[in-house]
């Protein structure tokens, strides 16, 4: 889960490996705030799979690659 300067850098870093998924930093930031916002709250409770799926879907991160275990 890394940051890159451009698609060209990603392709060069991947080499012969199968690409995963690429999203803009703006979307990653939205994802991070939705995913981690409550993490040190005193009343934290584990996210359910459904909660996490809802976060991904709201950001358009859908399809086979984003299917959670």
């Amino acid at each position, binding site marked *: *889960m*890394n*940051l*890159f*300067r*451009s*698609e060209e*850098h*990603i392709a*060069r*870093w*991947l080499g012969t*490996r199968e*690409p*995963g*998924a*690429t*999203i*803009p*930093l*703006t*979307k*990653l*930031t*939205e*994802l*991070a*705030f939705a*995913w*981690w*916002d*409550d*993490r*040190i709250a*005193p009343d*934290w*409770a*584990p996210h359910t799979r459904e909660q996490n799926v809802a976060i*991904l879907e709201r950001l358009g991160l859908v399809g*086979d*690659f*984003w*299917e*959670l*275990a």
Partner: protein
Amino acid sequence: MDDADLDLRRRTYAFFVEHRRAPAPAEVGEPDDVVAGWRRLHDAHALVLNPATDELRMLNPFSCVPTAYRVEANVRWWYGNCAWDAIGICAALHSDGRIEASCPDCGEPLAFDVRDGRPSDESLLFHVLVPARHWWDDIVFT
């Protein structure tokens, strides 16, 4: 995950945020009970232990060990486990911040600020190599 494990998790995270380092077991409770609780929390993906030593490796989004993702937030420096977690530290602390890393391809420094939930550099890209269903197969690699 029962109430006792949730309370142990809360104490562990509170110690980490206060001291910016992972606690030893005795610093958050009776050591044998703490290690047993941390193992249950590890199995529930609520934290990550080094399986060889039972030391804390990740209190996601925080890394307990140095990484390539440095985060300045709340006037302190932290380490994130990855780019997602680095921004997540700002989210968890409800703070603006600065992320410093480097491009894994060329090694050039990458840095940006997070202000009011938005990054200062919108040109950067985030790549996830591992499909979501396999993230926890090997979370350190992911």
